[in-house]
């Protein structure tokens, strides 16, 4: 059982939808990477696909880019199947590229990618917008990590796309470079693009997206505004020995999920650890072996899908 909120925000008009997945299923051999997954991406909106590694985030991106065919369901980008090359001219992508050819310069890379699109943005604009003008004649291999990521970002922008797919764009970046990429992503949405971003940081999704989709083992666990998702995703993890039964624990305010380790030992996931602690201590005087820690996204999402 999954608990899905309605995908469309109340004020969104269907004509703004740039791309959509409808009940898409995709398997790799015996493994189901994506199961009856639906998603709508709207102009001017950043959607974050949030989930632990291997949840199916990259599969969603690859389906939207036409690199994969779905086993079942329908995918549309501006009314077209993304496997048609016409559809691709409307999409920009930033994938997890370990390396672009090192020996071509920034400008050469951009010129080449521009030639693929019928109406590319001017090279000077792209360089200017990404702050790469000073290093335009430098070879890719000599750039810093942040500059490399920005060049890949410039390549995604070459065709002035309607839909931009960013697969973990800030992985491996320092804080400064990460802020830069965040700034660029906000600018994309402001320019009216539909942006899909994958990440395994709740903080990043919260900072950027108007809409967060939580995904785990190929299934949509929950979707909604950052506020709603933050309430649903447990930030804290409390472990203790208590006599309190499951029902009482679940009824506590701010408890997202519980996990029984043994008849006495329990792990509680919560988005408000102090509130839960106060309730626990008030209810059970014999409470012992108390341990409070931050929950990883993996733990939190796993607990949620188990509880749902």
């Amino acid at each position, binding site marked *: 059982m999954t608990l899905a909120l309605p995908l469309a925000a109340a004020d969104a008009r269907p004509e703004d939808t740039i791309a959509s997945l409808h009940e898409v299923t995709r398997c*790799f051999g015996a493994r189901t990477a994506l199961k009856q997954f639906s998603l709508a991406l709207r102009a001017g909106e950043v959607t974050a696909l949030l989930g632990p590694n291997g949840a199916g985030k*990259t599969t969603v991106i690859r389906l939207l880019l*036409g690199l*994969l065919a779905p086993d079942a369901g329908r995918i549309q980008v501006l009314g077209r199947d993304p496997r048609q*090359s016409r559809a691709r001219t409307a*999409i920009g992508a930033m994938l997890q*590229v370990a390396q*672009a050819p090192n020996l071509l310069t920034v400008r050469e890379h951009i010129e080449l*990618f521009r030639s*693929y699109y019928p109406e590319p943005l001017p090279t000077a604009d792209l360089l200017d917008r990404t702050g790469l003008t000073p290093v335009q004649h430098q070879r890719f291999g000599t750039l810093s990590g942040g500059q490399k990521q920005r060049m890949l970002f410039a390549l995604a922008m070459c065709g002035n796309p309607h839909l931009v797919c960013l697969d973990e764009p800030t992985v491996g970046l320092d804080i400064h470079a990460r802020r830069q990429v965040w700034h660029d992503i906000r600018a994309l949405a402001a320019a009216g693009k539909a942006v899909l971003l994958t990440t395994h940081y709740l903080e990043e999704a919260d900072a950027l997206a108007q809409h967060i989709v939580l995904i785990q083992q190929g299934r949509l666990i929950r979707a909604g505004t950052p506020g709603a998702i933050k309430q649903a995703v447990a930030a804290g993890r409390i472990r203790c020995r208590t006599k309190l039964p499951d029902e009482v624990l679940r009824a506590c305010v701010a408890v997202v999920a519980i996990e029984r380790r043994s008849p006495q030992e329990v792990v509680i996931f919560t988005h408000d650890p102090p509130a839960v602690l106060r309730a626990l201590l008030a209810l059970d005087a014999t409470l012992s072996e108390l341990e409070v820690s931050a929950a990883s996204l993996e733990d939190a999402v796993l607990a949620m899908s188990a509880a749902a």
Partner: protein
Amino acid sequence: MIEPVQAAKPLAISGHRLRPYALEIAYEFIRLARTRAYSLSVIGFPLMFYLLFATGHRHTPIAKYLIASYSCLGLGSACLFGIGLGIAFERAQGWLELKWASPMPRLAYLLAKMASSAAFALIVMIALIGLGYSLGGVNVSPGQMAGLAGVLLLGSIPFTALGLLIGLIMPPTAGPSLINLIYLPLSFASGFFMPIAMLPRWLQAIAPALPTYQLAQLALAAFGFAPRAGALVHGLVLAGFSVLMFAAAWITFVAVQARTQ
């Protein structure tokens, strides 16, 4: 003399349609030329072998034979290292995927690799003819030159196909040594270093099965060292080999795409 490469471009209606092909070819050539390990070895090895083995046989047919056969050596290594290794790396680094997600014309990618390899083979050929003239004391007539250039251009098709297949199945880390391991015996057994008649019988029996042998026979026919009559058969064998390799590469590509998670 790199002009003939341009012929590989397909006819298209507008300038916009042609531009990605032209740029893809140009930048692939530039990239390879800047890759010193590639450009130095693809051009350097045939020239070095020529200096070692041909200059002792000045004014003899050997000095001319080796111009044709080492040009083939150049084409083979240009394709196997440039295309095979190139694709293996681009695949492993996710670069191929990014290009595939863009509206890049699919054919442009392969044509660029093919045209660049052919260009390197022609550079090797011209340098060998120069060495042959200056140090080997042998002349290549314009007709023979055109014939050899034609063989190299057409020969770039089957070896592009082979390079593509290798690039799709080979892990990039194993790359260079694995290619050398296959390619060096192949070029020896195909008469690149000495006429096939001088090789052991069993090797002579195997040779016709090798695409490098078929290529060498065509190149030697252009110089009059092999009968012209056989050219059609060698050409057909190479055409069949190309179809086989492209088909295998396509099947591999589709399978890899479906498997990549």
